[in-house]
């Protein structure tokens, strides 16, 4: 039974607790919004290739919180070097999940490199990720990775190449940034430090 992306993302974000989420541009940003918009989710509308690095920065700044990067195969392919950078920093609280439909979903469903056999989980293994997995029918091991630490973890989740209705998050970047920081850091996020 082929996995469907919205069901997968719903399951990964169910009862998310302390989880902080970065979503790569395009379909995964719509997926996390369909699962329920949250100030502690940062959906990207651009900067293709940078979702995993956003997750690394956040994971280093918030070592006690689990951090999930949820992105597409095309977005991940544009930032493969970031897997090497994450492997070297080795944040235990970071999980990167690629929702892999083997297509560029926003531009006409052209095939990505993963459609021709490029193995993202194997690349993550080679980049020293602690645990890596490719799943095709059961996301329970991915959920376990996200919420149990022991990272950096990487999962490729193979899903159907379906086009779904857009579910759009707020688009104002300043709002997305400010609401995330306020929800995470409290009112101190909005004021300058008194000491210089």
């Amino acid at each position: 039974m082929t996995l469907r992306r919205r069901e997968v993302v719903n399951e990964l974000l169910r009862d998310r607790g302390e989880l902080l989420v970065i979503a790569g541009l395009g379909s995964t940003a719509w997926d996390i919004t369909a699962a329920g918009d949250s100030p502690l989710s940062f959906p990207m509308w651009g900067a293709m290739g940078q979702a995993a690095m956003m997750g690394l920065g956040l994971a280093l700044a918030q070592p006690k919180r689990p951090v999930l990067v949820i992105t597409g195969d095309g977005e991940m392919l544009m930032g493969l070097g970031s897997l090497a950078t994450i492997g070297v920093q080795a944040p235990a609280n970071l999980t990167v999940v690629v929702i892999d439909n083997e297509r560029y979903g926003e531009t006409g469903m052209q095939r990505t490199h993963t459609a021709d056999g490029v193995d993202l989980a194997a690349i993550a293994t080679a980049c020293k990720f602690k645990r890596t997995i490719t799943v095709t029918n059961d996301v329970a091991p991915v959920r376990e990775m996200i919420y149990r630490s022991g990272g950096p973890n990487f999962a490729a989740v193979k899903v159907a190449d379906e086009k779904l209705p857009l579910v759009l998050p707020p688009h104002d970047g300043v709002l997305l940034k400010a609401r995330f920081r306020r929800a995470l850091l409290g009112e101190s996020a909005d004021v300058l430090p008194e000491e210089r």
Partner: protein
Amino acid sequence: MQPDWSAEVHRELVAAGVRVVGYVPDAGHKRLIELCQADTNMRAVPLTTEEEGIGLAAGAWLGGEKTVLLMQSSGVGNLVNVLGMVKVCRFPLLLVVTMRGEPGEFNPWQVPMGQTTARVLETMGVAVRQAGEAQTVAPHVHTALRLAFEANGAEAVLIAQRVIGIKSFQEQRNQ
């Protein structure tokens, strides 16, 4: 005696509470990178390409930490598209850039990017401060830190090649 701009910049980063330093190495940044690596309150993060630094800095800021990025001028060319995120989200940004491709450069392939570094940054909305002398580097960094982290500014300090020294092929070979 030249002022030790690397140590002065490191002191500025400490005073501003910078905890993450992303870098792609450059010979001109060698000492500053080493100072940041040796600082137990800082996380020095080597990057495979300068572009990664933008994601790193933005993510760390979402989490409440300040990041500064070190790179050479050629690396500025790798940043262009992702600087769009800095602009649209008004993420704080400070790039400390060592220049190549200026008069005296031994490698002609460094020249095109070196000649356009400031214009590329300004075109993408990053304010540029040119440090032409060793003693002006730290004051520029001081100002840029304030603007970046207190006014959500996107700032770059360009350190002239004559400040870091211009190497010949022979000197490179002997390094």
